[in-house]
């Protein structure tokens, strides 16, 4: 009896599989997922955390060679990701852990370029597969639930003031090519790379995403978070114009 029920329960799956094989609809998708996953494991896993959870130790973040990717689907804009993987350009001026790539000079510390490695570039086909597989990773989905970015009207000079003077983001981030701090990722490309909801959520509480990251929680109010997301969207692409 019990076995009969088990067979009945698995019947829809069996039917679906049979139908998929006959029509050829499921096979390419499954194959693509497998190929993308395998590619990530082969090419990316040595530098990126693909499975989570995030490290909770200082030693852990210092040892990191690239950003965590187990919530890539919550973080990135898919179209940007596929393009960047084919033509990667440095986003973190001093690398994944800045402390490993700086040297003292008479004036101030500078980035030691000789210690920085370029990110490998992928073929168009591999980039498509990898980006698709990365966009399936949603470990941070719950944190984005309820995040609603509101469009605000913001004159550029007010955005500059907020970013530079009032909140001090400029201390660690560049808001233009060659202007700003170097220990955090450049932010004049942030809105090209990142989903608005992710930018909002990360700025609201960086440690919710990355418990030991060296970006402080600035206790930003919703109004300022909306303004900063808007500002990042305003400055994105300015350098190319």
């Amino acid at each position: 009896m019990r076995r009969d029920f088990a067979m009945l329960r698995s019947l829809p799956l069996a039917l679906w599989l049979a139908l998929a094989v006959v029509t050829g609809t499921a096979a390419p998708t499954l194959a693509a997922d497998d190929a993308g996953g395998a590619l990530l494991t082969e090419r990316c896993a040595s530098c990126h955390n693909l499975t989570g959870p995030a490290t909770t130790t200082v030693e852990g973040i210092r040892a990191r060679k690239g950003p965590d990717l187990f919530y890539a689907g919550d973080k990135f804009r898919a179209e940007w990701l596929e393009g960047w993987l084919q033509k990667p350009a440095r986003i973190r001026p001093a690398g994944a852990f800045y402390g490993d790539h700086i040297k003292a000079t008479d004036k101030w510390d500078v980035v030691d370029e000789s210690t920085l490695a370029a990110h490998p570039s992928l073929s168009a086909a591999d980039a498509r597969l990898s980006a698709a597989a990365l966009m399936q990773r949603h470990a941070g989905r719950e944190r984005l639930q309820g995040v609603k970015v509101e469009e605000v009207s913001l004159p550029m000079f007010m955005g500059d003031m907020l970013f530079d003077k009032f909140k001090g983001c400029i201390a660690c981030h560049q808001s233009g090519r060659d202007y700003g701090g170097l220990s955090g990722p450049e932010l004049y490309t942030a809105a090209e790379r990142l989903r608005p909801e992710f930018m909002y959520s990360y700025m609201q509480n960086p440690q919710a995403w990355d418990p030991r990251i060296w970006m402080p929680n600035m206790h930003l109010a919703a109004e300022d978070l909306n303004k900063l997301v808007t500002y990042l969207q305003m400055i994105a692409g300015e350098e190319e114009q």
Partner: protein
Amino acid sequence: MSTRAGQGRFAIAVLLLSLLWAPLAAPVHADDAVSPRAAELLYRTYCIQCHGLHGTGSGINVRDMAVQPRDHTDSEAMSGLNDERLFKAIREGGPAVTKSVLMPPWGGVLSDPEIHALVKYLRKLCACEEKRGPG
């Protein structure tokens, strides 16, 4: 009867012990005991980006800053700041001690014991003690 009284005493002892334990069990990011070595690692992870590899206030971020970070090796200036003020500046940021917003609040990532350990590390960097006074 005596067994019941014994159980009662045991329950009270457990309760008292748990009350004693409660403050220690409060959520902190790290163990209460933060070693000098761990404090140095914290400094070299969170602080050197602005205060520099040698703690002199010349980190990789300073070039475009409107206000320069404090030189932690300046014995005279650092001895004028008491430990309480240093703790507050790290935990709550520059504006909490009427200083620049460019010094952000680290209370969201560093525990109180870690910040206390950092204050001790700053005293080592400046090779100075706090002066008595308002700070």
